[in-house]
């Protein structure tokens, strides 16, 4: 128990119409970058909100640094930092003021306050914009400020809900570097959610894949990828018998789409392709295209949930909110 930052046991959260969390159990090590990956509505945000005592679970138990979140919610909140996926910096204040308010709410001693705020702003490279109004900030700067707010009390666990959502690739890279730096320099445990495969792959030590309130699997990205079983060959053919022929030949197919594409999982794909094409030709099946791909997290996701991850409503909503916000504050 001692090396665990977060422990979740049989967590259930039921809403009138849906079960947002349906018996989830896992734990996060101290100093780990842990990611929950899944499509929208998988229960990732609900999970974070339960851990931060923003909503009460229907049943189950959660501990953060051995503190029971149900029993001692204020203590839990005082050792955590939270960056919600929506805009959470106040556009009508300066960057300094935004951090100041949070330093006060986290009951930071008056003497240390100023120094600490300046430190955190410097860490996030916002010092030269400290006294500018936040509604003049770019999306990336806004995100950095939001992280500054969450860092000012030096949290042991930092919760990041979709940290790079709605950011351009450059800003996204900066945020990623920052997250890694935080863990490496201060040993902060990072608990993040994302629906971006690449982000999860680049950042996380371990990834839990969530789908419809369940934790489908949990492991290191490399292990997850090798669990797919090898390389993936995609074959498209106009011939409908292609799929059944492949099964007949003894290949394990993971998908067979309506447009005539079959995905096979194989070892040593490069050497297998010529052989595969020969067998299909002998069987009288015309192949239109072949492609070989090393497995990525998308395939892992497909394997464990039977679906491809897609951008759903919440993402679009968030982007809209961010846009509306920028428009209103300009």
């Amino acid at each position, binding site marked *: 128990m001692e090396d665990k930052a977060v422990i979740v046991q049989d967590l259930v959260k039921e809403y009138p119409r849906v079960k947002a969390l349906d018996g989830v159990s896992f734990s996060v090590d101290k100093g780990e970058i842990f990611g929950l990956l899944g499509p929208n509505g998988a229960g990732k945000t609900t999970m974070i909100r339960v851990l931060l005592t923003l909503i009460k679970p229907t049943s189950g138990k959660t501990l953060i640094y051995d503190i029971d979140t149900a029993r001692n919610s204020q203590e839990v909140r005082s050792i955590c930092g939270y960056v919600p996926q929506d805009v959470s910096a106040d556009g009508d204040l300066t960057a300094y003021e935004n951090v100041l308010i949070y330093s*006060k709410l986290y009951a930071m001693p008056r003497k240390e306050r100023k120094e600490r705020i300046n430190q955190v702003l410097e860490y996030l490279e916002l010092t030269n914009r400290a006294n500018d109004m936040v509604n003049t900030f770019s999306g990336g700067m806004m995100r950095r400020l939001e992280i500054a707010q969450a860092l000012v009390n030096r949290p042991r666990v930092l919760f990041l809900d979709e940290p790079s959502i709605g950011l351009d690739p450059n800003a996204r890279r900066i945020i990623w570097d920052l997250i890694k730096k935080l863990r490496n320099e201060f040993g902060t445990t990072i608990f993040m959610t994302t629906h971006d495969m690449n982000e999860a792959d680049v950042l996380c030590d371990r990834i839990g894949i969530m789908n419809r309130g369940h934790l489908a699997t949990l492991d290191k990205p490399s292990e997850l990828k090798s669990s797919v079983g090898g390389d993936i060959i995609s074959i498209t053919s106009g011939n409908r018998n292609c799929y059944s022929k492949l099964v007949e030949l003894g290949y394990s197919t993971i998908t067979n789409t309506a447009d005539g594409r079959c995905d096979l999982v194989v070892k040593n794909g490069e050497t297998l392709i010529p052989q595969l094409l020969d067998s299909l030709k002998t069987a009288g099946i015309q192949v239109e295209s072949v492609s070989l791909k090393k497995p990525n997290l998308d395939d892992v996701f497909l394997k464990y949930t039977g679906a491809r991850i897609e951008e759903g409503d919440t993402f679009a909503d968030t982007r809209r909110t961010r846009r509306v916000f920028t428009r209103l504050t300009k």
Partner: protein
Amino acid sequence: MNVLKTMGKFFYNAFTIAELEVRKIRHDQTQIWMRMVQPALWLIIYGETMSKLNAMNSSIPSGLTYLQFMTPGVLAQSALFVAIFFGINVVWERDLGLLNKLLSTPASRSSIILGKALSAGVRGILQSIAIVILALILRIHLILNPVHLAGVFLIVILLGMCFSCVSMALASIFRTRERMMGIGQAITMPLFFASSAIYPLAIMPSWIQPFARINPLTYVVDALRGLLATGNLASLPIDIFAIALATVVFLILASLGLKRMVS
């Protein structure tokens, strides 16, 4: 000792939330000026017109002009308008993510609500300063000794707190900005008309009078009128008690509602 510490923290957090609001107002003062337009119209146009009515003049306390009678009512109304739409801010902050982030700090829910309510009170104070200045410009004679003005500020803070809590409690039920706009419109006028803000209770239709008596705004107007116009403070303790009671009740309702807001 522990209780004191918890209380201290509670109020510190509430004042921090209010500080946030004050800082916002400091950065952008345009809305203070915008909000002076409506009371000015009430006093200049409505007030001047109505003061020509005999029925009105004979029913207000003797020794007062109608404008003197009405100014405290207009003050109460303008502070009420600020407070009653306060729930929209909270819905807006929830939609953005600000509210979730606030709730993830160690500050308790009720201290956050109290802080928001105080913010509405602060806006009310600015409003009352503006109206007193307006009254001076229009040469409406008011009692302006410092003790009375302090009393006015106290009443206005309570007014802002009370009705912003009503608004936040409603926001937790109705949950969208559009609906809150409608709700705000739907309740301000009844609250305003069913009070003694712009005419004495005595000449109002008899069926509204019972409503006026349970309307917190009636007590607010009565207190403000005593402090600013008549100088008669006999009913002030009852008024303050009634307003404070309503404020506490709605503060509790709004705190309970906050949980519903975010789930």
